[in-house]
């Protein structure tokens, strides 16, 4: 059905952006002057508004029959020479779900920010950016065609740039924002190329049409040769946005932004755009097993890689950042093996618990008056009971402790990686390893932060205080979701025991993302689903509590086992990846540009031009000598001319 609902959902944060970004400053003659509360509540109101409308849209979808969707056609964006791109928004079951997540979590985080950012200056700017981000993110998920998706895709990139660099006076933070934008751009080029290829093959960029056309065998056969290329380019785009190898480097730096930003953008929503895109185009990706396996491998490796780094970090936000990268790796693993709905499932649960964890860490940092180093915390449990409680739930959820949300989604991924034809056995092993690591570093984080001895300085200790209600309330809401969210996707095995509880999510997504049937025993690895489930949960529990226990006293494993110092160093420096990139990418670029701008352009290209000029002058000067000033020389010249004339005559005649 068509309705203006999607448009309204989209517009309302934009209005908020305008009010915060334009109206207030104009009224008050300046950005710094906006009252923080006013700005915060305005922004929250508008995002909440679109949350309400998303719910209404969602209501339309419920029982809306076979693949229901709400669309609103806004205007012709492009239309020339066969390239027709309407500005059209479509909410189907997948994007509806994501709208809910975005606006819901968005609302919570706005609320949280209102209190968290209260003492900053230019809060108006902050909330304007935040609203703008929501607008772009919604556009990303609601856009009915790839260019619109790309619009949102770039838009969120811009907002993350702006928000990471919110404290722009600090060069570090500004650089982080720049890095994020540029690395994303690299991915975006892939995205663009993918789009161009698609357009060349199919002549359209409308998502629904693409998926529709792919049901037609002739079309499939026609695009078969180039489909791998298309999917690969799109996947490159996804790696950029969703921080996969090798383009993940920007995400950890992105933690330079305010913590709520990290929660919203770099955990819950934006970074999952790649997953969304792949899930959205799953019929296309289905056609190319090769790229699928690439995706799976990249995902798995990223997961393990980032997870291992997370162990050795001391900055609480860095830990969470790397864990985000690793969780995204899980999602890509799921996509890679073909379990799209599982990926979306994990996307959702991850949104819950990772947002929760970030906000919690934000509350911790808030309490420790800006301190982010876990080695200067410890024993905060008694000072921050609410924060501790909620974060505990979050940590349990991410570690995959049974019956918390993370458990269901992660478990499904692990099992799909052996149960589905696309799966690979060793990826399953990597997955399990990562799960173990996840639980371990989460436990470590909790222990370093809340348990163990108090290591903070006195004045910090003096100021310790539980965060105000505005901050704890979102924590509790998210805690609930993180705890219970998993029951939307109960696997059949358990579902049968639990009174035939269905896998709600996969049924819901079915029209958009067809659910794969999981056999009871893995095909790649002869393991019964129950075994996997039990095993993984045991591993999770064990390593979580190991983590908690081990790090009561020490900060690094190497403190316990001296042999591991080297490894520790390696991990602590993130495998020196940034340094590597600096050597193989950044510096060469700098050199090339210096060479091009400094040498080639000045001396070669321009040198040729100026050389020509000088040459002409030189010729002129050398010709001057004929002009001796002696009239008889001129006479001789004349006589020479006469002779030339005669010679011409003679030559012609004889």
């Amino acid at each position: 059905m068509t309705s203006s609902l999607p448009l309204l959902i989209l517009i309302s944060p934009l209005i908020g952006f305008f009010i915060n970004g334009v109206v207030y400053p104009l009224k008050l003659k300046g950005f710094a002057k906006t009252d923080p509360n006013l700005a915060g509540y305005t922004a929250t109101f508008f995002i909440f508004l679109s949350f309400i409308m998303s719910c209404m849209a969602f209501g339309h979808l419920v029982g809306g029959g076979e693949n229901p969707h709400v669309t609103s056609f806004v205007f012709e964006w492009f239309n020339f020479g066969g390239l027709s791109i309407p500005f059209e928004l479509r909410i189907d079951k997948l994007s509806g779900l994501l709208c809910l997540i975005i606006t819901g979590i968005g609302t919570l985080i706005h609320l949280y920010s209102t209190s968290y950012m209260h003492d900053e200056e230019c809060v108006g700017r902050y909330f304007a950016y935040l609203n703008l981000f929501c607008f772009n993110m919604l556009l990303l998920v609601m856009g009915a065609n790839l260019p619109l998706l790309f619009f949102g895709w770039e838009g969120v990139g811009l907002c993350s740039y702006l928000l990471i660099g919110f404290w722009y006076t600090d060069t570090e933070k500004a650089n982080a924002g720049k890095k994020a934008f540029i690395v994303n751009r690299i991915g975006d080029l892939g995205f663009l190329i993918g789009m161009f290829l698609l357009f060349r093959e199919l002549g359209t960029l409308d998502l629904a049409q693409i998926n529709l056309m792919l049901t037609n065998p002739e079309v499939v056969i026609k695009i078969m040769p180039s489909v791998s290329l298309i999917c690969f380019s799109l996947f490159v785009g996804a790696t950029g946005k969703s921080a996969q190898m090798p383009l993940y480097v920007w995400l950890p730096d992105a933690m330079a932004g305010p913590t709520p930003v990290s929660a919203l953008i770099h955990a819950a929503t934006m970074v999952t755009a790649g997953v969304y895109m792949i899930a959205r185009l799953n019929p296309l990706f289905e056609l190319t097993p090769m790229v699928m396996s690439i995706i799976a491998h990249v995902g798995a490796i990223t997961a393990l890689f980032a997870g291992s780094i997370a162990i050795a970090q001391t900055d609480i936000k860095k830990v969470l950042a790397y864990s985000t990268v690793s969780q995204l790796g899980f999602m890509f693993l799921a996509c890679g093996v073909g379990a799209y709905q599982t990926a979306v499932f994990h996307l959702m649960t991850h949104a819950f618990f990772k947002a929760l964890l970030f906000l919690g860490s934000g509350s911790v940092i808030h309490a420790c008056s800006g301190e982010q180093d876990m080695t200067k915390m410890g024993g905060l449990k008694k000072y921050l009971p609410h924060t501790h409680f909620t974060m505990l739930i979050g940590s349990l959820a991410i570690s995959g402790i049974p019956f918390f949300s993370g458990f269901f989604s992660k478990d499904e991924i692990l099992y799909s990686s052996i149960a589905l034809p696309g799966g690979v056995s060793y990826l399953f092993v990597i997955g399990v390893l990562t799960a173990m690591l996840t639980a371990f570093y989460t436990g470590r984080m909790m222990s370093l932060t809340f348990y163990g001895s108090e290591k903070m300085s006195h004045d910090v200790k003096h100021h310790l205080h539980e965060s105000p209600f505005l901050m704890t309330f979102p924590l509790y809401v998210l805690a609930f979701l993180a705890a219970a969210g998993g029951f939307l996707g109960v696997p059949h095995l358990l579902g049968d025991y639990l009174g035939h509880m269905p896998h709600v999510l996969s049924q819901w997504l079915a029209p958009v993302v067809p659910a794969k049937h999981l056999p009871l025993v893995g095909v790649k690895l002869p393991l019964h689903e129950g075994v996997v489930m039990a095993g993984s949960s045991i591993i999770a529990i064990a390593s979580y509590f190991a983590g908690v226990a081990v790090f009561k006293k020490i900060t690094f494993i190497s403190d316990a086992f001296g042999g591991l110092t080297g490894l520790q160093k390696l991990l602590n420096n993130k495998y020196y990846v940034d340094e590597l990139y600096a050597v193989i990418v950044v510096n060469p670029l700098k050199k090339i540009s210096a060479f091009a701008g400094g040498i080639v352009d000045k001396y070669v290209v321009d040198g040729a031009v100026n050389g020509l000029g000088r040459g002409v002058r030189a010729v002129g000067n050398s010709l001057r000598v004929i002009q001796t000033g002696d009239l008889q020389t001129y006479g001789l010249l004349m006589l020479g001319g006469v002779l030339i004339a005669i010679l011409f005559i003679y030559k012609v005649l004889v």
Partner: protein
Amino acid sequence: MTNDVLIQVLAAFLFTMGMLVVLLRRDTIMVLMGIELLLNAANLSLVAFSKSNAMIEGQLQVFFVITIAAAESAIGLSILVNLYRNFGSIKTQSATTLKG
């Protein structure tokens, strides 16, 4: 070989000589004389041609040419005097301040 040819050859020779005088002698006055010689050679061949063609046009022109020659030499000599006043010499190579 008839008179005509002989005179023509003589004219040509005088012409060449005049040219060489103009080009080689460094005295401006000599140069002027060279020009006179050139004109004379031209007259000679003009007359001879018209004679050999049984015409009178050539002869008539010669009057004019001679007059012109007179006028020219008058101007030339006054320019020469002027030069002598300014440079104190009438060598051609003394008057080479304008060059390049």
